[in-house]
């Protein structure tokens, strides 16, 4: 699975959810979906906006975690 570590990056950059949502033109609800690993897909434009505002790389936000067998 792909784990979204957005809350970790947001905490490091000291930026709140409401402020980030406004900066990247995303609704707080959609940002919450992303933060809580409920998103099924992310647009490149959204990923680009996140990396721009958080001054980070996609790999800082997205992490591949192997599925546990059984």
């Amino acid at each position, binding site marked *: 699975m792909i784990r979204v570590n957005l809350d970790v990056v947001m905490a490091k950059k000291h930026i709140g959810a409401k402020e980030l949502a406004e900066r990247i033109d*995303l609704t707080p609800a*959609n*940002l919450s*979906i*992303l933060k809580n690993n*409920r*998103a*099924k*897909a*992310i*647009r490149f434009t*959204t990923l680009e906006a996140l990396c721009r505002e958080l001054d980070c790389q996609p790999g800082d936000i997205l992490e591949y975690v192997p599925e546990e067998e059984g």
Partner: protein
Amino acid sequence: MKNNIRITKAAIWVLAAVCGVLCLLGPKLVNYVVQRPGIVFQGALRWWTILLAGYALALAAFLCLHSLYVLLNRLERGKVFVRENVRSLRTVEKEIALAGAGSLFLGITCLLLMLAVAAVALFAALVVRVVRSAFEEAVRMQDELDYTV
């Protein structure tokens, strides 16, 4: 789309009324039908089988019309690709298949003509099955779209 839905809803009301009238005329219809030769059942057994199976088919028809009406109401409110519609279509498919099975039984035992009704009903059930599968896929795609940020 709204016009199409209204026309279909009107057709449902008409069909329900026709079904109701046929139910009221049940015994008279059976008296007319038994004049044609039977296959397996004869006499009073055939008469009662046609009457009771006919009412059972009418019940299946009313249930199916009701399920379709509820589905149309949802479509009219803009709720198209939602799980409830998939469930409604599954229910409609089962109700049509049940009517087909009942018609098949009647066709084999009492009235050959019902075999044609059975064939049409079972074909309709297959068509609804395909539509239901398409709706399921659309709901899955809608779900994916809703959770794309």
